[in-house]
């Protein structure tokens, strides 16, 4: 096996997938895994037989991990909720993410620690989704006592229900009165995340100060992963052209951040060792700042492995780092395999890594002498490879097929790179030399305006996209 981790990750994912399709118990998967583990030990010195047993073992391990993740602990809040109980529940805990405010309503994930039912207090665990009306100023980590009814996903769209289920959130609490939220004025959040969110607020402040709306909303989405200020019209237009991926922080942004950090440290004459030790925590901070979504976690792990390979002067293998990133994410929560963000992120990168070099050598582009032509052809092949890998997923989840995607990505991705670089330059200059910031802001606004105009033009081309019914 030239890439053992990649092969083993494939069998692990297959185990998760097959296990989700059949109804089997955790104990069965676990018992079989133990049997195959013993068989692997006995056939330790046999080449092919050992490999077969190992594949089966990893397959069953994936299956057992999924079944185990579906088993809730006895103290889970879900076990305390009864449908005969009509009284509101009182729950103590803390806010586990950055609250999102939309139309006088605040939404956040709440980590429950104690629940009161019928005057009895129980220690509990697990996350719930909370919708609270007329509440302002809530922040990540804040400890609260909430009073309200708990229900299972009532009034939510199916795709959002699936998303919540994959995140391990099974209950929703709706709070209508501000008086039903008691603020305990304590913060139980993770210190690094509190700092990351503080930094994010500062950056948002800079962007909205220097850049007019709606360009500010697009820039915030592209570099901070904050989509609340992106209008529905812009979002829909980007979905139609197949370029909505640039409105979320993805591996592309993480790679650019790594590049910017390394270049700044290089300019400041830091040694190779110091660059590695400074870049890694900064990348982790960026990952937290942008909400640690699947694509960002994948890209952060892959980038850190790349930096490590560069640091120890070894040749990085993209398939191996790809496999490690998948194993870390699925090891923490195997249900992420069914998350659309996870699937699109891994499929797009995999198809670029796998298809692009093959297409390039098949078409003989390596022999193209004209640099500009080679750049355009490369750009086309990367975009085409990503589209081939993801179009089936996009059609299935978003019910849209966009032939214009390849052309749109060829034009928009380079522009998005420029916008991201301009945006980060704006933030750095606004921190260090505020008088220069307006000039960087003007360039960023121009680039965003150009991007939106190009996108509008592309989706106005006949047969640019089709809705699938």
């Amino acid at each position, binding site marked *: 096996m030239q890439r053992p981790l990649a092969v083993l990750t494939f069998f692990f994912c297959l185990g998760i997938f097959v296990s989700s399709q059949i109804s089997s118990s955790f104990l069965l998967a676990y018992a079989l895994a133990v049997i195959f583990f013993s068989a692997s030990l006995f056939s330790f010195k046999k080449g092919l037989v050992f490999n077969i047993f190992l594949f089966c073992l990893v397959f069953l391990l994936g299956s057992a991990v999924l079944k185990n993740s579906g088993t809730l602990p006895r103290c889970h809040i879900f076990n305390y909720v009864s449908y005969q109980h009509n009284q509101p529940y009182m729950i103590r805990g803390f806010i586990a993410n950055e609250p999102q405010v*939309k*139309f006088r309503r605040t939404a956040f994930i709440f980590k429950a620690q104690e629940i009161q039912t019928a005057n009895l207090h129980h220690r509990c665990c697990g996350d719930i989704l909370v919708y609270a009306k007329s509440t302002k100023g809530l922040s990540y980590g804040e400890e609260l006592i909430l009073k309200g009814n708990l229900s299972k996903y009532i009034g939510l769209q199916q795709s959002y229900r699936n998303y919540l289920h994959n995140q391990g959130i099974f209950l929703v609490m709706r709070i209508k009165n501000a008086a039903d939220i008691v603020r305990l004025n304590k913060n139980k959040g993770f210190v690094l995340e509190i700092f990351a969110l503080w930094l994010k607020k500062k950056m948002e402040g800079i962007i909205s100060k220097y850049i007019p709306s709606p360009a500010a909303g697009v820039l915030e989405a592209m570099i901070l992963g904050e989509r609340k200020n992106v209008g529905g*019209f812009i*979002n*829909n237009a980007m979905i139609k052209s197949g370029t909505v991926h640039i409105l979320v922080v993805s591996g592309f942004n993480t790679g650019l951040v790594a590049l910017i950090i390394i270049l700044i440290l290089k300019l400041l004459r830091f040694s190779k060792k110091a660059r590695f030790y400074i870049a890694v925590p900064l990348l982790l901070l960026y990952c937290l700042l942008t909400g640690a979504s699947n694509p960002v976690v994948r890209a952060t792990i892959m980038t850190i492995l790349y930096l490590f390979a560069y640091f120890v002067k070894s040749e990085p293998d993209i398939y191996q780092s790809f496999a490690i990133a998948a194993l870390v994410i699925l090891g923490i929560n195997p249900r992420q395999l069914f998350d659309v963000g996870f699937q699109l992120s891994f499929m797009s990168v995999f198809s670029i890594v796998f298809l692009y070099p093959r297409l390039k050598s098949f078409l003989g582009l390596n022999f193209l002498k004209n640099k500009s032509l080679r750049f355009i052809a490369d750009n086309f092949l990367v975009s085409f490879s990503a589209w081939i890998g993801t179009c089936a997923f996009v059609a299935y989840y978003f019910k849209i097929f966009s032939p214009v995607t390849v052309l749109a990505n060829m034009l928009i991705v380079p522009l998005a790179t420029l916008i991201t670089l301009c945006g980060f330059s704006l933030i750095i200059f606004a921190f260090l030399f505020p008088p220069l910031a307006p*000039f960087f802001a*003007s*360039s960023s606004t121009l680039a965003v*305006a150009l991007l939106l105009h190009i996108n509008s033009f592309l989706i106005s081309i006949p047969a640019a996209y089709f809705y699938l019914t």
Partner: protein
Amino acid sequence: MFSLTLQERRVILFLISVALTGIGIDFLVKKYSRTKIIADFYQDIGKINLNSADKDTLMSISGIGEKLAVRILEYRSQKGGFHDLEELKNIKSITNYRYEKIKDSLCIK
């Protein structure tokens, strides 16, 4: 004393080019902000033209549901189009609060 690698030169030149473009745009916008091409390019980016949008497009704005989109279209056909965004307030269920929420997503051409 002053030796830059190729990579460092690229970074410095990139930053200067961004700042230079920014200064140029800043000047253009200040001087010619009333010129139609500049106004169209900057002020209406990502906005929906109230005089040409269909029902689905209007519904893509958060704060406009199906009923309200239909009322907007009816008002537009009755009056022969919108001349000012403030006219939206004449439509039933568009309160000042809702108007403030949706006005940044709309433009009139």
